[in-house]
């Protein structure tokens, strides 16, 4: 909303390249936007919607026609030009909205939760399509989403925003594997946290030193991040050499098809979760109440400060 010019920022500056556009009117920004509810004009046909930005720019009639048909090609809607907006399905409207946002060749494309109104299957299809389109056009795209998985799949860079501030900006892998704060670790993916004490270069969990891939940075109130899929359920009697070990009792087993989520109450009292892939090669899971040992590789042993940065 701020980028498109509909909301004035409380503070700060907004620049596209060298141009300061903090106070520029929305219609002068040349930013394409896909609205959450698409905002296709119901009193115009698909062609009318697509031609509208071109007409405003006094593009010649023949140019308008060829560009509209090219845009329809691009979103695989050939032959839909004469349809009214209310004759389109949700996925088709989504495509028209996307085509309308890029037809006037904006410098930046904004997408405000564009897929949130679609059902899961269609959403995943559209994610791939939007990505392909993005690769073909090479247009800088700002994609707003609350769906963390979508953020990770769609992006080259992810910015996690909390209360109007960037909390961490980085590649999807960095954001997921190397969260900088508890907020990021909790926001992306399911995580549990255990308090750790730092003593020099050693991190102690319940008095036991943890094996780490690198020296821990000094931080206030460090926490160990435990993601379910990083914890390996050890077979009975397996030593788990080279892994950080957590012991406890199984309190709940949730079968989810491709994997089973194992909730464990550790001996120290905290609850964590481990995900075990559904595979015959995985060790059998203990019954509820049974003793269990979980292993965590040093490379996956991540510490974050409790307080937001």
């Amino acid at each position, binding site marked *: 909303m701020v980028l498109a010019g*509909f909301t004035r920022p409380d503070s700060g500056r907004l620049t596209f390249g060298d141009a300061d556009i903090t106070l520029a009117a929305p*219609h002068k920004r*040349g930013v394409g936007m896909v*609205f959450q*509810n698409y*905002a296709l*004009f119901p009193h115009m046909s698909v062609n009318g919607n697509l031609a509208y930005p071109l007409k*405003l720019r006094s593009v010649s009639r023949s140019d308008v026609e060829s560009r509209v048909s090219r845009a329809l090609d691009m979103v695989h809607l050939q032959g839909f030009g004469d349809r009214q907006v209310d004759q389109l399905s949700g996925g088709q409207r989504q495509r028209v909205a996307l085509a309308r946002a890029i037809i006037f060749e904006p410098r930046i494309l904004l997408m405000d939760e564009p897929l949130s109104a679609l059902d899961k299957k269609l959403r995943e299809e559209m994610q791939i399509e939007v990505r392909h389109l993005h690769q073909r056009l090479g247009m800088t795209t700002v994609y707003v989403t609350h769906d963390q998985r979508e953020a990770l799949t769609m992006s080259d860079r992810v910015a996690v925003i909390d209360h109007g501030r960037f909390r961490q900006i980085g590649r999807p892998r960095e954001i997921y594997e190397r969260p900088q704060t508890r907020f990021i670790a909790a926001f992306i993916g399911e995580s549990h946290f255990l308090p750790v004490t730092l003593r020099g270069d050693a991190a102690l969990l319940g008095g036991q030193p943890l094996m780490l891939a690198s020296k821990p940075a000094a931080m206030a109130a460090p926490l160990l991040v435990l993601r379910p899929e990083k914890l390996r359920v050890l077979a009975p009697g397996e030593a788990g050499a080279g892994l950080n070990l957590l012991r406890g009792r199984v309190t709940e087993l949730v079968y989810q098809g491709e994997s089973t989520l194992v909730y464990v109450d550790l001996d120290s009292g905290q609850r964590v979760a481990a995900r075990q892939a559904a595979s015959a090669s995985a060790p059998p899971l203990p019954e509820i109440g049974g003793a269990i040992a979980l292993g965590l590789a040093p490379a996956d042993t991540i510490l974050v400060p409790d307080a937001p940065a």
Partner: protein
Amino acid sequence: MSTVLAPNAEALRTAERREGLALGALAAPGLLLIGIVALAPIVWLFWLSFRTGDAFTFEHYVRLLHPTYLLSLRTTFELTFLVTGICVLLGYPLAYLTAQVKQRTASILLLFVLFPVWTSLLVRCYAWLVLLQRRGLINTWLTDAGLIDLPLRLVHNFTGTVIGMVHIMLPFMVLPLYATMRSIDRDYTRAAANLGATPTQAFWHVYVPLSLPGLAAGIIIVFILCLGFYVTPALLGGGRVMMWSMQIERNVTYHSDWGAASALGVVLLAMALAIFWAVGRVIGFQRILGGR
């Protein structure tokens, strides 16, 4: 291949049919009332307009071609067009403002719009008389302020009738417009701006077309109410504004000529239907009647 029906399919279908009948029965009293109170008199009116004594006749309609009636028709249409036009010009911006502000402020504005509707029509007309007459408030103020030397002729003529009618009709324009405008998503004008439309362009290209159903509804209501209006022209027109409705009243009270009055009524009804049809042709009936 025959479809295999579950054993209770027949029972389910009976239940559904019974539900449909029950709904129909609920609507019956309303339909009956409309039939007796509205439709039957119209049929009776139609019948009367073609009768003289016991014979069938076109006499009542032929008489309508007399210059007095034609003048009345002209006055009626002039007044109706003018009042509807002014209502659009005043009502659209008012409804637009009301639709843009916060809900709380909008409620207060709507209260101002609705308030006159809650007072008697007669009271409002006499109030205008007090304001507009030769020695009324407005003329007194203007002469005292030295802006005019002679009092303006504001009432007992066409001008006064228009002023009074606009005041009375304005809510009927504003309310349907406001309802339609409230339902226009802000994102439409935002999208237009995002695509490069100046605020003025966005307004004319997107907002106005989307508000047309409300405008059409307002125009139809005001237009049809104006066509048959009686009280205000009678009070504020001072006998100089001869409306179609007054001709009906005259034929009934002075001449007891029900045939002529009926013919006038039928013509009025036909005109109202014609307006509805014409606007419907432009905007689409479904959009006026609430569908989208």
